């Protein structure tokens, strides 16, 4: 064998003395202590934030559930007047939106924030404050959004907000709540996705190579990457729609050259992957539960990885199957129909892997498995009706009927809610060291399972008989009455099951005994957790040799507990965790993570404030709040990031010494910037797509393009901005060479050039008199320019920040995280500038 590699590190042969261990524990406890009292809300520990996040998501789930019951009461009998048509529209819009945006996605992110560090044997995620910021943003945005229902101004255009219904016919505030409230929450979702991707790639324990990662982490990586590419289209679309509503730029108005179908493309380019973003993490929970109760390793690990990654990709080729009846050419339908069928392959593969694992193991009965069985069986039904509606001719018949409502609830409740509830049952001991009752769990399951099928199975029938969705009532005598009544009864049985579950999860359990450690005898790393848990997460960060270390690594728990592995101590009283390499998880850095703070809370309040004020078109307040948000975030970065440590490196145990401060591609911050900017670039690509979309549908595009913005100003602006980019790169190099005055000169010039370039870019459409409210062509040109200029503006703030950091001695030649990340940001900005100029100045010449 020529593949010589360094031998694995073994845990200390001898435990440190009892006294040494006691000292280590005390120091760890001091470093990771949670704030108490009202200051408890400043905590950023993943366990605290994860629990709040999950509780909030569950609260929104119950709210969405109540809305569903209101709809079922309304539909119980024909010609009912329990809800008015208008109210019904609000209720179904809110139900869909709350369940998708405020429950399903946040729930999986919350769950992952809680459980991922435990699965990876990490002390915390790399950016605990970012998680907290995401949580507060979500809570504020979600509450604001739901509050609209109480004031009778809730959105009522469906969870997909199709124009022109949401532009010309509903000019009131409802749609603004949706567009702005949710964009804010989507930003929070992307923040969490960045956190989770970097967590999986860089914060694994030493030795956890790609082939040893828990399946949950694989699924999570895929789902988080999907968020990164799926959410930006809807953010870009929301931007266009809100600008149309607020400023009358006609992106979706056919009278002035716009096209409502563009919204459907952008929405479903998000909306379909979203279904899989919800589904994959839920299957991931099943992938953790099944091996535990089958008492064996999962069968077909690489096949499941294939399924997760394959589903992630294929799910982006399905969006048009929501648009089969919009009159697109047959070839477009055919392509999307083909991909919609293909995605059934990886989806099926993972289910067969689970069945094989169960067949090959010795299965023990348990409530989590019951939910897993029930969920997968229901999901298969939804998957099969999905294959049916993926066929365009069948979809023509079933489109917009209750058949689709039945189908999608089988997919989402079967594929997501049952596994998540099973997961809560399974992981509950990790939340508070207690176990939930088995018999009550079984009762909750059978109630929910029976109620679920009773509710949604008849909907297939009412749909095939022709009952349309989203209509508040129906006439008697068309065969709708009976099945609808059954559905309503079923909905209440399902609700009873949920209530039983909620009561037993949330009732006080002070007098119940703490459950033993690893209560299910699982093999995966997260069950290392002590009962009740310790704020430090793991006592020492283990070296991993197996996929199921608790089953297969001898004396594993003892070695971790006695501090025989990495980082058993917190000598400097700092919060520390390990960063490892992507492929083989070799330790590369001892990362210091920040502690409790209220700054994330205020950052979320001010960011949210600017979205709230925009909803009501209070532009001055919105601007003021945005400035406050920027100030708070800058304070957060200034005081809490890229801190120069008191020493360059430290021993982390087992004879390994690691650097504390690294910059560039080796640092987690650089990865976070890179991943964030990939998402940002995706949103920009959607705007560029819109430009070419308008070109496709307008035979007279060239004539419109002759008005402006010309080539002179865009080229001038582009040149100045690319020069600013080049100088920023030069500044990074000069800083590294410790040539301070040259650094200041280069970066200051870059700032000046950036400002001038931005002005020149604006001058193009401005001086050629392009009026964005007249026609869609000037509107989309302006939108590309505004998008670019906003990015340049942020880039200027970053350049100034780096100048200040160096001047304040917080950035040096060796400690250059700030300028390295800013240079990376400017790479993306330069690309944005280049594409914008090429499109608005170059394309009219060739069109």
């Amino acid at each position, binding site marked *: 064998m020529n593949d010589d590699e360094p031998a694995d590190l073994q845990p200390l042969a001898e435990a440190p003395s009892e006294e040494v261990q006691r000292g280590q524990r005390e120091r760890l406890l001091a470093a990771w202590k949670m704030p108490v009292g009202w200051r408890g809300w400043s905590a950023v520990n993943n366990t605290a934030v994860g629990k709040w996040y999950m509780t909030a998501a569950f609260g929104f789930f119950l709210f969405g559930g109540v809305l569903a019951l209101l709809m079922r009461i309304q539909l119980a009998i024909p010609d009912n007047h329990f809800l008015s048509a208008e109210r019904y529209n609000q209720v179904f819009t809110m139900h869909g939106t709350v369940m998708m945006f405020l429950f399903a996605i946040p729930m999986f992110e919350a769950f992952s924030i809680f459980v991922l560090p435990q699965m990876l044997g990490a002390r915390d995620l790399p950016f605990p404050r970012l998680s907290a910021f995401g949580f507060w943003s979500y809570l504020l945005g979600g509450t604001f959004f739901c509050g609209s229902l109480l004031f009778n101004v809730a959105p009522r255009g469906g969870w997909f907000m199709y124009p022109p219904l949401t532009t010309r016919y509903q000019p009131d505030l409802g749609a603004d709540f949706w567009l702005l409230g949710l964009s804010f929450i989507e930003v929070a979702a992307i923040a969490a996705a960045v956190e989770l991707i970097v967590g999986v790639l860089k914060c694994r324990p030493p030795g956890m190579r790609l082939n040893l990662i828990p399946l949950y982490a694989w699924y999570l990586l895929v789902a988080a990457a999907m968020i990164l590419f799926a959410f930006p289209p809807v953010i870009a679309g929301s931007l266009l729609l809100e600008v149309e509503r607020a400023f009358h730029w006609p992106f979706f108005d056919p009278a002035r050259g716009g096209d409502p179908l563009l919204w459907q493309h952008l929405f479903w380019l998000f909306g379909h992957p979203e279904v899989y973003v919800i589904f994959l993490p839920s299957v991931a929970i099943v992938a953790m539960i099944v091996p535990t109760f089958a008492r064996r390793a999962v069968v077909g690990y690489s096949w499941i990885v294939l399924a997760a990654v394959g589903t992630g990709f294929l799910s982006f080729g399905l969006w048009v199957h929501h648009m089969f009846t919009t009159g697109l050419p047959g070839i477009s339908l055919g392509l999307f129909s*083909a991909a919609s069928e293909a995605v059934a392959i990886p989806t099926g593969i993972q289910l067969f892997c689970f069945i094989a694992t169960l067949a090959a193991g010795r299965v023990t009965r348990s409530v989590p498995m019951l939910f897993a069985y029930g969920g997968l069986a229901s999901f298969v039904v939804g998957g099969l009706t999905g294959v049916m509606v993926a066929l365009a001719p069948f979809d023509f018949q079933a489109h917009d009927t209750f058949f689709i409502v039945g189908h999608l609830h089988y997919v989402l409740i079967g594929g997501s809610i049952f596994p998540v509830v099973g997961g809560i049952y399974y992981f509950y001991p990790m939340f508070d060291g207690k176990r939930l009752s088995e018999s009550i769990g079984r009762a909750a399951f059978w109630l929910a399972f029976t109620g679920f099928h009773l509710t949604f199975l008849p909907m297939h029938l009412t749909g095939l008989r022709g009952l349309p969705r989203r209509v508040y009532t129906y006439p008697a005598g068309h065969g709708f009455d009976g099945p609808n009544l059954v559905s309503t009864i079923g909905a209440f049985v399902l609700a009873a099951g949920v209530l039983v579950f909620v009561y037993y999860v949330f009732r006080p359990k002070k007098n119940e005994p703490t459950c033993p450690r690893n209560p299910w005898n699982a093999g995966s790393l997260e069950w290392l957790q002590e009962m009740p848990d310790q704020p430090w997460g793991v006592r020492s960060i283990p070296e991993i040799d197996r996929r199921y270390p608790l089953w297969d690594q001898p004396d594993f728990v003892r070695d971790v507990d006695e501090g025989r592995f990495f980082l058993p101590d917190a000598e400097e009283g700092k919060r520390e965790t390990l960063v490892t390499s992507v492929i083989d998880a070799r330790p590369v850095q001892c990362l210091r993570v920040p502690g409790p703070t209220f700054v994330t809370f205020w950052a979320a309040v001010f960011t949210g404030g600017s979205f709230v004020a925009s909803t009501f078109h209070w532009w001055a307040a919105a601007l003021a709040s945005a400035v406050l948000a920027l100030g708070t975030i800058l304070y957060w970065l200034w005081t809490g990031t890229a801190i120069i440590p008191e020493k360059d490196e430290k021993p982390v145990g087992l004879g390994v010494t690691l650097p504390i401060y690294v910059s560039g591609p080796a640092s987690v911050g650089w990865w976070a910037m890179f991943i964030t900017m990939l998402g940002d670039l995706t949103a920009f690509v959607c705007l560029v797509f819109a430009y070419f979309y308008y070109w496709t549908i307008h035979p007279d595009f060239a004539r419109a393009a002759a008005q402006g913005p010309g080539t002179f100003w865009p080229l001038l602006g582009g040149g100045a901005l690319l020069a600013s980019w080049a100088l920023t790169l030069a500044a990074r190099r000069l800083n590294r060479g410790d040539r301070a005055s040259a650094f200041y000169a280069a970066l200051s010039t870059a700032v000046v050039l950036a400002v001038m370039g931005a002005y020149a870019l604006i001058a193009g459409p401005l001086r050629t008199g392009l009026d964005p409210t007249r026609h869609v062509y000037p509107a989309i040109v302006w939108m590309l320019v505004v998008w670019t200029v906003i990015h340049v503006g942020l880039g200027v703030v970053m350049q100034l920040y780096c100048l200040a950091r160096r001047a304040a001695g917080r950035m040096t030649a060796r400690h250059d995280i700030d300028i390295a990340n800013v240079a990376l940001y400017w790479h993306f900005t330069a690309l944005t500038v280049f594409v914008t100029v090429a499109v608005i100045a170059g394309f009219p010449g060739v069109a």
Partner: protein
Amino acid sequence: MTAETDESNQSLWFVIAAPIAWAAHFVASYATAAVWCERFAGRDGSLRPARLAIAAYTAVALAGIGLVAARAWRRRQHGGGVEAFDADTQLGRHRFVGAAALLLAALSAVATLFSALAAALIEDCR
């Protein structure tokens, strides 16, 4: 000189190269057909040029996926193909990555053929 299996010679991009080829094929096929029908042929026009283009894309995509699959197969069989996929060694990880990439290549090839089938069966822009 580091061993082929060393982490410095690896990249996660390899695993998703084949699905990226599928995605490129998919987007190119869709864009070509949509632009052709909307801007040039009209709703009753022939799809022929777009179909020829899609055939060409399919050949290119399948060739690319085939290359990835061949490399993935070599990785999977590295070192005699005996080391377990869950072994705590560079070789085990190397073989696992090869196996995963190979499976993804197979899935991507099937999905690409599915897309091509749509172009093979539909003759005009209606």
